[in-house]
């Protein structure tokens, strides 16, 4: 009897262990989170994966840039040639249920890099992984984290230079699966951005770029970190730092101004050999997040969805002979009098075509520095006029003689039109918008400097599931 008991016990144990094995089926076409984050290789792949949402249509793949242009006055809607998209930014008809989807996409990238950063510290010294490799990965993640929060805070929050005590966005150093974070104020968010970027600047190796990518300008480099710092300081009104970092990038010798005859072609390049681009988002149909017909190219293609045309308010600003004034084309059959930007006219990779979206380039560094100097910074050996004329001379435009601060900002609009800057430049300088060439709903045709729309509403679905969030003034939850 005793034997029988022991035997049954053994049998039961065996059966149970076998059951557990039998009932374990792990996914093979994707990788478990645990496994991905366990090794340096996995973390390296996870870091690279964190870049891919940048090309989402919610971000640099289309609407982060196009929304800003459509509401800034640079955009126009042809009444006959459109697909019904982009009416909300054009009419500034924002509500908590019609607001940019950037929130989810940017926090997704933030969660991806936070997962990496939380698991990276103990990897140096194991399996031949060096501290330098770990540091480079950290720097990439910190750059992406700062970059994502920067786009979030300037979209959903007021600008640092306008009201830094206003609500910004939650700055997440750790992504908690059960977290319901509160909004940090704008100042805290910028301080954290500054911290992440300056840490990243220290950690990254001077010559580091990620291996194996098609376009080395679409991954983080030390100069990209510094160029972003220049912009962040400009947004903070830290003029000297903005000018210093711009100078560092300009003086690195890595970049050169596109000349007038190269300008149009530069926006059709697939990868870069020299030229202005410091950091850009890479377009390709095989990208996981490719927007296809909703991508930036088809949206600005006069023969595509064409929802985002350029207003005559913008086009009429360019001088005769300025190559930037020729960066527009019409649709001779269907809309002969409306013009669309050609900055996303594609890389000849099929229909719908794809384009790179430039995020940071050399001209911006000159413009940042010129603006910073015009507002009080000083850099030996250069002046706002010199920097502005560096640009104008390379565009076939007449050089300035002693440009005013207004001229500097005007040049910024001309040069960076359709690259997503103008709206935010107006926002941080307390500007307003008057639209004369306009086909939308008249309610918000003009945007005064105290408009609620300078800070866009938080999405209702997010408010509904996180009771710690507070909506921006003027919007319903």
């Amino acid at each position, binding site marked *: 009897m005793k034997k029988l008991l022991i035997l049954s016990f053994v049998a039961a144990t065996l059966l149970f262990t076998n*059951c557990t094995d*039998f*009932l374990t*089926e*792990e*996914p*093979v*076409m*994707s*990788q*478990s*989170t*645990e496994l*991905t984050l366990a090794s340096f290789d*996995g973390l390296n*792949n*996870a*870091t*690279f*994966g*964190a*870049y*891919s*949402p*940048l*090309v989402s249509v919610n971000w640099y793949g289309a609407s982060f840039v196009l929304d800003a242009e459509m509401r800034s006055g640079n955009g126009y809607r042809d009444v006959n040639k459109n697909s019904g998209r982009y009416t909300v930014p054009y009419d500034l008809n924002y509500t908590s249920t019609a607001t940019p989807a950037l*929130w*989810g996409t940017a*926090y*997704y990238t*933030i*969660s*991806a890099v*936070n*997962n990496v950063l939380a698991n990276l510290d103990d990897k140096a010294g194991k399996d031949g992984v060096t501290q330098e490799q770990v540091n480079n990965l950290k720097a990439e993640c910190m750059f992406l984290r700062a970059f994502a929060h920067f786009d979030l805070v300037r979209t959903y929050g007021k600008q640092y230079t306008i009201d830094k005590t206003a609500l910004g966005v*939650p700055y*997440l150093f750790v*992504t*908690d*699966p*059960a*977290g319901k*974070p509160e909004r940090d104020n704008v100042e805290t968010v910028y301080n954290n951005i500054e911290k992440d970027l300056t840490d990243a600047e220290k950690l990254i190796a001077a010559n580091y770029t990620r291996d*194996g*990518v*098609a*376009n080395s300008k*679409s*991954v983080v480099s030390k100069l990209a970190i510094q160029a972003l710092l220049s912009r962040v300081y400009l947004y903070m009104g830290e003029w000297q730092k903005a000018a210093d970092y711009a100078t560092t990038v300009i003086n690195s010798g890595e970049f050169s101004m596109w000349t007038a005859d190269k300008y149009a072609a530069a926006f059709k390049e697939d990868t870069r050999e020299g030229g202005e681009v410091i950091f850009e988002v*890479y377009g*390709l149909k*095989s*990208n*996981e*997040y490719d927007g296809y017909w909703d991508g930036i190219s088809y949206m600005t293609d006069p023969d595509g969805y064409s929802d985002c045309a350029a207003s005559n308010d913008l086009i009429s600003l360019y001088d005769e002979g300025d190559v930037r004034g020729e960066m527009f084309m019409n649709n001779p059959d269907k809309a002969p009098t409306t013009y669309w930007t050609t900055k996303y006219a594609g890389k000849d990779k099929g229909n719908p075509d794809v384009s790179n979206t430039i995020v940071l380039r050399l001209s911006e560094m000159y413009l940042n520095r010129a603006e910073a100097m015009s507002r009080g910074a000083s850099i030996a050996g250069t002046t706002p006029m010199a920097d502005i004329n560096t640009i104008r001379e390379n565009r076939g435009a007449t050089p300035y003689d002693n440009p005013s601060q207004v001229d500097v900002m005007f040049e910024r609009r001309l040069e960076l039109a359709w690259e997503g800057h103008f709206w935010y430049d107006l926002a941080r300088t307390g500007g307003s918008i008057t639209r004369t060439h306009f086909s939308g709903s008249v309610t918000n045709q003009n945007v005064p400097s105290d408009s609620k729309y300078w800070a866009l509403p938080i999405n209702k*679905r*997010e408010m*509904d*599931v*996180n009771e710690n969030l507070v909506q921006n003034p003027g919007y319903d939850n």
Partner: protein
Amino acid sequence: MKKIAFFLSILLFMGTQALNAQTKVITGKVTSAEDDMPIPGVSISVQGTTLGTVSDMDGNYSLQVPENAKILVFSFVGMKMEEVAIGNQTSVNVQLQSETIGVGEVIVTAYGTTNREAKTGAVGTVTGAQIAEAPVVSVDKALNGKIAGVSVTSNSGQPGAHSDIRIRGTSSINAGNNPLWVVDGIPVVTGNANDFLNTGNALASLNPNDIESITVLKDAAAASIYGSRAANGVVLITTKSGKDGKTSFTARAKFGTSWLANDNDFGIMSADQLLQYQRDAIVNAGKNPDDPMDSYYRPKELLSRPLTNWMDHMTRYGTIQEYEVNATGSNAKGKYYTSLNYNNTDGVFYGVGLDKITGRLNADYKLTDALESGGRVNLSYLEGMDVPMQSLYYSNPAFAGMTILPWTPAYTDEGKHNWEIAENSNQNPRATAEYDDQWGKNYQLMGNIYLQWKPLKQVTMRTTNAIETIHGEGRRFWSAETRSSGATLQTTMSKYQRLTTSNTIEYKDVLLNDHSVRVLAGQEAMKHTSSYQYVYAPGVSMDIPYVQTGTPGSIEAEQGYGARTLLSFFGMLDYNYSDKYFLQASIRMDGSSLFGSNTQWGTFYSVGASWNIHNEGFMDGLSFVDLLKLRGSYGLSGNNNISAYRAFGVYASSAYNGTTGMRPSRPENPNLSWEKNSSWNLGLDFTLFENLDGNIDVYKRKTTDMLLDKNVPQTTGFSSNFLNIGSLDNRGIELQLDYKILNTRDLVWSVGGNISFNKTKILELGDNEEIAYADDGRLRHIVGKSLFTYRLFDYVGVDPTNGEALWRDDAGNISNDYNKAGYTYDYSPEPKFTGGFNTDLAWKGFSLGAFFEFKGGNHVLLIEKRYLSSDGASMNLNQLREAMNYWKEPGDTGVNPKPVAGNGTNSNSFSSTRFLQKGDYLRVKDVTLSYNLSSKLVEKAKIGGMKFYVSAQNIFTFHDVDWWDPERGTDGIGYGIYPMTKAVTGGIELSF
């Protein structure tokens, strides 16, 4: 060799001698107690042995029995079994009593059988004979309207398409709603098993003629033993075993034709109707149709061009043909049934067809007196020719046939198919049907082998081991002949494989005369894997249309793999006291790889009881009550129909910038678990006057822990998490009645019918009050309402003063501005009641049967009418004839809005109630006339029997839906579908 032969013949001789030494011969005649007519084919066997024979045409038999044989057993379908003591007799004549309908009929149930008298659960049955003549390709189509509470909805009339079956309503939003299908004791793969076919129905591998019976387990008492898979009910299919007696062969042939159903004079406009309509619309827009400079230039000259009715051009008479031979027989040791069937169907649309070959062998063999073994093996090959359907593609002939303009020529001047059709994106489905090569093939094996041991009279141990494998392949070759973009190739390979082992031990005994007990314990394990490979290659050469010639760099490939396992332990107890009181209980523990580590095991159970009131003493005076039975049950079952790996937190690959990284794709979910379904059932069965059979069931089933995507803050990196958070309930009542009006020797007339009412109500959706239906946002799931609710703009009708469409806003005001329209939530695609009824009349060799099916209380939404009744918005598409009924002068009401060329008012919105209609229908599903050759003729011809029949399917449907056919799928929206077709078939069946 010679030596062996000699030796064998010696053995044989000796054996015969030995047998002769101890046997005697018994002869006799079997007749019917009712009319004294001889009964041929009665099985006669010696109790406790495998010796037996069957009676001949005159009811006579002769059987050699051992000297010590004691009892002869006479059995025949439809007759009560008779046991006769042999004693010293050498001649035994018996009269068999016919069985009261229904009562003694064996009903296959989970892990056993029961009969109407003994059951405690709610079950419905269909016999093989009831489905044999219908020209259905797969068995799921045969259940339509046959069983109360079982609703079968076609998503497509395409031959071989699968159906959605709902048993007692719909229990889930995200886990499936189709029942578990169990064939010969083994759960099988269901649904579409071919990536490139609308018609890769895995159940099509079963030949409906091979089916002996179908049992539908509806309540917990009947179904819960299937544990985590039982929540949506269980369909048990039993295939035919060998018949007693010598080998008999049956050959069948069937031919038929099918065509598009259209019982409401529905259709598209002719050329002159369309031209008039368009010219009116152009004038209404203030333009001139005769102005060549205008974008709407519609001169009368268009009618002098060659005109085409494109719907006619896309369709044809379909053909149906089926051939089958089967053989069945038995001897003392073994029995077998085998069949081979070929089925060929060409659809009503060009380019649609199905070829199917199935073969089956069911064999059972007694190895020793206590040991039996056998197998059920089904092999099938299915080849479907397909065109794009089920959506509003330009390439869908069901849609393009209605939209292409009648003055667009069908052929070019050279006599080739014209495919430069601007209004249809330069596609001609008729041409692509001819030049493209689009098919899917399934090779399927479904089989099991069992070994059964009865060491004691009361104990049966059985092991059944099964394999099912479906190997699928598909090819879509888009020819350059009909496209300017060049040729494109897509190929797919897929494999489903399922291994199952089922092991049971049963103890069955009668204790102290009155206490019948059956106890069963069992264990099962299942592993299911699926995988596929898909290749897309644009720019392939027309000469070598394979991937190799595709455009380098543009060729894309994809792979998938999934596996799941299930491990189960279960037990059942049946107890019955003196055929009066029945008690049944079951329990099952399932462990599944699909669920989280914290919740991998679930326990499911049921209890049921029934009381045979008619067996009580106090009923003795009521002799007209043959059966009166009260049943009740409660139980818990589960729904595990979710895709694999949902419990794992995973990273997925993410291509960007020329290389591939990993991105978070799903959060971990260690608490992911089954949806639970608890159900009550109360039922009453009765048989009165030996000719009226019926049952009534009322039930309530509640789904809890319903799996839903719960929104989470996006700051977590995810938008939602799949959690067990919702609940809903279904309640309903079912009624089934069968009445034998006449039952004489020459004339038998029976009628029957069933109806069931079901109501679904959502109780909880986690944090949400309303969520969108995953497939179409026009349908919503709303707390407190039925499972599906249409959310549509409230269309009021036409303004009688000016012909504009009017809308009701949220405040109840009427406006002609579509942007002000408010939503209405008053309609649902779910039927309130479903059912069917039948009548069967038999006179001598003739029989005439008709079967009707109905559904009602549901609404369907006709998305297509946005384009086909567009009030001038779709000026380059043909329109429906009913669009001609539009507002013409002040005072007109109940008509379509005034058509205006270039209409941009959204009067034709497909999100409004304007195109919502009542979906009620009554369908004459089947009318069959058959003739069995009289026994005299049969005998003269020395054959076993011969039968001719002619059958009409869906010959008429009463409905008010402005479409070919009222069925639009379970969600009522199903656009671009291949409509149901009508068919007439004739067949001949010969047995010998």
